[in-house]
């Protein structure tokens, strides 16, 4: 997982559903703050994937157009093998699973 800018921070486009669930965070303004919120995200959502934090300049998010959420698969040669449509509409793990299954059927060179 690459933790990026908050999608619905309390200081911008906050959603009622997040308020109801007490998921209320302002967008982190420093690496320390981003690390803190990312750590809580990983802990409370029980995320078991290796989790990284984007730098505070959001350069990784910009390079991949990852906000608010998005899925990619990078192949063995470092090329993009799967790119989802932008989330939330395009965030479909089943499509990701199919892409991985396709790669599993292709033996490495």
């Amino acid at each position: 997982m690459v933790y990026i800018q908050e999608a619905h921070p309390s200081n911008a486009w906050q959603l009622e559903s997040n308020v109801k669930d007490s998921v209320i965070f302002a967008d982190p303004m420093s690496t320390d703050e981003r690390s803190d919120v990312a750590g809580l995200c990983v802990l409370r959502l029980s995320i078991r994937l290796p989790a990284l934090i984007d730098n505070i300049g959001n350069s990784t998010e910009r390079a991949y157009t990852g906000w608010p959420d998005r899925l990619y698969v990078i192949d063995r040669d470092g090329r993009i093998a799967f790119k989802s449509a932008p989330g939330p509409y395009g965030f479909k793990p089943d499509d990701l699973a199919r892409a991985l299954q396709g790669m599993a059927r292709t033996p490495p060179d």
Partner: protein
Amino acid sequence: MCKLLKVAIALGVVYALLVAGLYAAMAQPPERFGQIMKRMPRQMFFILPFKPLWMQARAGSLRVGDQAPDFTLQTTDRTRTVQLSSLRGKPVVLVFGSYT
């Protein structure tokens, strides 16, 4: 009839401007887009074609087959860094997201 036509054209122009404005907002950096959305009346979601505009505005320039942009990022606990290119030789899944 002529007056009705003028009203319809005026409404069409206003709608087109709203659609163009929303698309332009979606093309802004996330923090700026969030500030715009904070002020947008909720009714606009039902009037404007949010989803198709979003899919286009946030499509991004990367294509399947492109070299994945390299990055070196810290783990959330900041105990180590990971460079994407160091993982060559095995598939890598990237899940971009946040808490909210």
